């Protein structure tokens, strides 16, 4: 219902108790540590950059280990539920082992990378040696006393006979060693005095020297050596894999370690915001007024002096919203726009009601609504979801209820599925119209206004739904204006309230009254218009300017009209979801009737209705939010508050 009142907390503690103090506050989860104001305190800032960097390094290491081991985890289940972490016990019993596992994992990964690099190099050597396996001379032998020996290759399909003849002129001998698709591998022997000429002959025919410089023994021996090294590496890689699998069994502990170290990092980061004297540290922070007693109790157990103050003039305390069980699920929607300024009105409650109704209208369908509600309420407890996510899910759960209710009123059961089944699968009726006439329930309620029955189904009667949409819009806008009116009155700006907001309220009320009593309505509208002309220019000094500014005040009418028309999107989105659903049903029922027809319908529905639902939940969410942000908040909201973020233990994997 409101923005929580905040108290400024100041604590003096002995220097060596600083960490313990922050830990204690962190477990309370209701203090936001703030930077001690240098100018105000004239104290030096605590410098614990080394401690913070150290904590950061450890968090990074644990995180790296988690990433390495994630692939080797044998844990079952898609979602891990949070584990219980008893910090003291964990530190005493399992901390060392977990940290050791982290270091092992990182070292093992490093060794694995080295092995892979070596393996790649060895594979290259094997590839180079492969053609020379039958060559029977040690590779170190490149020269005898008189002769020169070289190994190399010609491009594939070179005719060696011709080269042999050419070389014979220089008394050189060419011998083929191996040949494959890549080339002809040969050895060439010649007298040292002919070497240059032979080289020329070979060069002309595309001879490439074999890259065998690093080898000295027989090719076969070298090959065997490399092969053995390869096998050894393969075995080691396999062992590494096994070791990582083994380490992955420690994953639970390592995750606990992550939260532990993250919390340490939080403490170190918070500590940097403190100020210090020679013996003491000063901690300042914000706490909601409702938690002051609890904090005082916790702090009196610590060796420290503390006090709570009201926020001073000009200070901007962080904003914590406080709402009832229903509305608190919608707080994050407000947060997505902006938190209200500290000390101003929290619109969550009134917004949540309109959010509920408008979302329901935009996505009016019993089938989708029930699914949404089931998902929103059943998934969070099933996987022990955290509060923040749980609220998001619950919000959609509530919206699902609204969709289901609106679905009964406006006739949506996975679109027109009941009629599609009756007409196409069961063959009870000839056409959909006949089915609707016989069983009108699934087509939504019928109003009878002055004897005329009015169908509410948006496809049968879009105009009726448009009127409903704009009607809700008018109520929404009026609610925004009334909030503004009340806020101005509370702020003792009664004139502004009556002249700027009240006059418009009179005009809108007058427009409503016209339908009941023509003359009274017109009188009210004229009265409102006159009020605006007379008062909208009251800030101007020049009487002529006063008049023109007054006339200009009427221009707001265009804004209000545009705001109202914006609500026609409720109809457009409602129709879009209904038509797509209808198409899915038609495709599902058009092929065969009877039992096989039901199977096909089920199959088509699984895909079609899921896609339609996903798209429309996103669309309805975005556009309902937009109507709140622009049309509703625009009337009164003072944004710019900063969210209250208390220091708390890390809870990515555990509950502490």
């Amino acid at each position, binding site marked *: 219902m409101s923005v929580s009142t905040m108290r400024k907390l100041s604590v003096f503690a002995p220097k060596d108790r600083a960490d313990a103090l922050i830990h204690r506050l962190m477990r309370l989860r209701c203090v936001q540590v703030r930077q001690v104001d240098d100018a105000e305190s004239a104290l030096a800032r605590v410098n614990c950059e080394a401690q913070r960097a150290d904590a950061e390094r450890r968090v990074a290491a644990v995180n790296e280990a988690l990433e390495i081991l994630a692939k080797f985890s044998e844990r079952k289940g898609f979602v891990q539920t949070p584990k219980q972490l008893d910090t003291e016990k964990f530190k005493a019993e399992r901390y060392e082992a977990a940290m050791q596992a982290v270091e092992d994992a990182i070292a093992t990964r490093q060794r694995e990378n080295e092995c892979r690099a070596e393996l790649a190099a060895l594979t290259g050597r094997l590839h180079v040696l492969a053609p020379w396996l039958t060559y029977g001379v040690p590779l170190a032998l490149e020269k005898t006393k008189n002769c020169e020996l070289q190994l190399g290759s010609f491009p594939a399909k070179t005719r060696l006979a011709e080269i042999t003849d050419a070389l014979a002129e220089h008394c050189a001998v060419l011998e083929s060693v191996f040949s494959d698709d890549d080339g002809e591998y040969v050895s060439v022997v010649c007298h040292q005095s002919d070497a240059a000429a032979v080289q020329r002959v070979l060069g002309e025919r595309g001879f490439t020297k074999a890259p065998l410089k690093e080898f000295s023994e027989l090719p076969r021996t070298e090959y065997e050596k490399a092969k053995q090294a390869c096998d050894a590496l393969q075995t080691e890689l396999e062992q590494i894999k096994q070791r990582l699998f083994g380490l992955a069994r420690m994953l639970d502990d390592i995750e606990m370690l992550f939260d532990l170290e993250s919390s340490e990092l939080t403490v170190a980061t918070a500590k940097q915001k403190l100020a210090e004297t020679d013996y003491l540290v000063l901690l300042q922070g914000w706490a909601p007024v409702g938690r002051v007693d609890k904090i005082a109790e916790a702090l009196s157990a610590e060796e420290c002096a503390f006090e709570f103050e009201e926020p001073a003039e000009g200070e901007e305390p962080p904003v914590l919203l406080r709402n009832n069980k229903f509305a608190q699920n919608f707080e994050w929607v407000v947060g997505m*726009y902006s938190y209200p300024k500290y000390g101003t009105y929290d619109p969550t409650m009134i917004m949540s009601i309109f959010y509920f109704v408008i979302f329901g209208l935009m996505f009016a369908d019993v089938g989708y609504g029930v699914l949404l509600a089931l998902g929103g309420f059943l998934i969070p407890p099933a996987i022990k979801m955290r509060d923040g996510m749980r609220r998001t899910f619950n919000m959609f759960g509530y919206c699902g209820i609204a969709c289901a209710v609106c679905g009964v009123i406006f006739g949506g059961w996975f679109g027109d599925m009941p009629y599609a089944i009756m007409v196409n699968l069961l063959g009870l009726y000839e056409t959909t119209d006949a089915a609707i006439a016989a069983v009108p329930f699934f087509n939504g309620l019928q109003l009878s206004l002055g004897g005329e029955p009015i169908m509410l189904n948006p496809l049968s009667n879009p*105009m009726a739904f448009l009127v409903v949409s704009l009607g809700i819009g008018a109520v929404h806008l009026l609610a925004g204006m009334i909030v503004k009116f009340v806020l101005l009155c509370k702020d003792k700006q009664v004139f502004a309230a009556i002249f700027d907001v009240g006059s418009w309220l009179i005009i809108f009320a007058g427009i409503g009254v016209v339908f009941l009593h023509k003359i009274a309505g017109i009188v009210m509208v004229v009265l409102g218009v006159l009020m605006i002309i007379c008062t909208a220019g009251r800030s101007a000094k020049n009487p002529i300017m006063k008049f023109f500014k007054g006339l200009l005040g009427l221009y707001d009418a265009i804004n209000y009209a545009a705001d109202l028309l914006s609500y026609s999107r409720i109809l*457009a989105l409602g129709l879009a979801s209904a038509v797509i659903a209808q198409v899915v049903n038609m495709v599902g029922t058009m092929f065969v009737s009877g039992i096989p027809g039901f199977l096909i319908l089920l199959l088509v529905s699984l895909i079609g209705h899921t896609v339609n639902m996903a*798209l429309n939940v*996103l669309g309805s969410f*975005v556009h309902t939010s937009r109507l709140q942000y622009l049309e509703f908040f625009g009337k009164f909201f003072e944004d710019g508050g900063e969210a209250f973020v208390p220091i708390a233990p890390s809870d990515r994997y555990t509950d502490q």
Partner: protein
Amino acid sequence: MKKTILLTIVMTAILALALTVGAFAAEDAAADSAITVGATEQTEQAPKLLAQVFNGGALAILGAALAVGLAGIGSAKGVGMVGEATAGLLSENPNMFGKAFALMALPMTQGIYGLVIAFLIVFKCGLFTDGMQGLLSLTVQEGAYYLMSALPIAVVGLISALKQARVSAAGINLLSKRPDQVGKAITSAALVETYAIFALLISVLLVLVG
């Protein structure tokens, strides 16, 4: 880019007009030939052939095709643009996909709105209930009416999807620097969609009421 859009719209308008005029001419000619029974065979053949192509059913189908086609082009291009920006974001921070996804899906809706109108037109033509017979029984007037009804979402859907994609892509950039501001990025992008929704609304009302 702008030229392509402009060209597409101008071509659409010309095509629609030409077809409508053609259809009316074909109908008139058919009516004329029906009155002048004694005409030669050649003049009787020509209007019949024309009337087979330029009739109410073809105009209505053209409307459906334009609605789903043009709005679909816009969405395809738009989602592509945001997808590219998202890939850039993901290369630095793969965990952001969930947040980026909403922005990617936003320019998708125009294509769906086009699809909705196309289906409504096809429903109204009776293609699903009466098959080709329903389509052929449409008068040129009715067909032209459906064609015109489809134009708002076809044209506005195309342009708003492209413009929305630009805002969404900018939102992805915002996301890479300030992940907490995803709400504002989505809201800004959703503003552009307003006009596609208005176009959809008018198209739906025209088709349903007509």
